[in-house]
């Protein structure tokens, strides 16, 4: 990236530099897995006959494994929960208004939910330099009031929904509409972490929330 240079005003140059850094982060967007698979099938699998056979074998093995997984393993995260989490996350990131409680102090966010929820969210991660707590919001999750904690990772917003639902039994990772979602249960409550950050970052935050 060419370094933005302005010989007019150092503050303008600094603004350019900040915008360029934000853009460099923003422009990176992983291609959907479906697209990558289509491209690989179309342009790699046809290069050599043995690759075609290998691809067919891999596809067959993959399908068989998927069938076995589908039959044997009960999905831990219901698709409805994932859809709800992604939908609520989108509402938070696109809302024209600030969060209900906008502060980086968890000790202000948690008490704010008192009287607004009929449970106490088991969240103790106060945020750090890598995952800054932005605040909290009262969400409606599957028709019931839920807590939303909002963290920031560079330009990415990460929402943590804490909701009263017994359906979540085990941890699961799902990608829906391009958003990564991690769902787990804690203290009899459901937890859903949603963002467009990469899996590594999302798992890192999950680990800090669960520690």
């Amino acid at each position: 990236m060419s370094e933005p240079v302005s010989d007019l005003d150092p503050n303008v140059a600094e603004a350019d530099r900040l915008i360029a850094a934000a853009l460099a982060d923003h422009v990176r967007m992983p291609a959907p897995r479906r697209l990558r698979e289509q491209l690989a099938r179309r342009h790699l699998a046809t290069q050599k006959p043995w690759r075609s056979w290998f691809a067919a074998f891999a596809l067959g093995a993959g399908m068989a494994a998927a069938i076995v997984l589908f039959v044997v393993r009960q999905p831990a995260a219901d698709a409805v929960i994932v859809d709800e989490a992604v939908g609520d996350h989108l509402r938070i990131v696109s809302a024209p208004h600030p969060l209900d409680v906008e502060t980086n102090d968890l000790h202000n966010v948690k008490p704010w939910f008192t009287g607004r929820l009929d449970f106490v969210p088991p969240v103790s991660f106060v945020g750090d330099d890598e995952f800054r707590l932005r605040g909290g919001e009262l969400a409606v999750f599957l028709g019931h009031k839920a807590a939303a904690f909002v963290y920031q990772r560079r330009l990415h917003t990460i929402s943590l929904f804490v909701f009263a639902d017994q359906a979540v039994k085990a941890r699961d990772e799902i990608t829906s509409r391009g958003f990564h979602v991690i769902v787990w249960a804690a203290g009899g409550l459901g937890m859903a972490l949603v963002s467009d950050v990469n899996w590594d970052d999302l798992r890192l935050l999950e680990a800090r929330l669960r520690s």
Partner: protein
Amino acid sequence: MLLSRKPRPLAVVADRADDRPDPAGSLAEQALAHADELYGLARHLCSTSSDAEDIVQETYARALGGIARLTPGSNLRAWLFRILRNCFIDQARRKKIVLEISDDTVGERPANEGWDAAALDQLRYLAAADLERAVGTLPHELRFIVLLDAQGFSEAEIAEIARCAAGTVKSRLSRARARLRAALQGSGRGAGKRERGNV
């Protein structure tokens, strides 16, 4: 202007690829390594993810269909982005979308824009949605150039991809940055700095 070439059906291109010798195979692997970058750019140019996927598909179909034309030592990455640009313009034509023509004769904004320390601090807390909106206000050609710059291309490479003079790239980049500054001034949320009530 470029891109008068009619896009060939993907299936035809893919069939031809079958007969290619092995070197094309390794080039295809190298080319596919840029899928994320191409999609990232396409997604910011197109209004829907489906359109973005279409032009990336078409880019690879054209690129790998004509990979024999790529001379050894050429910049594969830049070549792919040039094809992506062509595909984007062809798609716009098919959809009868009028692409704004940027006026290279118009100068950039004056320097006095009021970027004080507070305004700069807001930029540090810039929300992705605000940045997205600001980029969306740019004419396509300026958007394309500023996004190529964000992808790490040099001005000379951008000139090669956009098929214009290096001086034109420089002036367009300058105007794109001025527009982004104008669109983003006061956009930062200042999250973490501002507290709404000690509740």
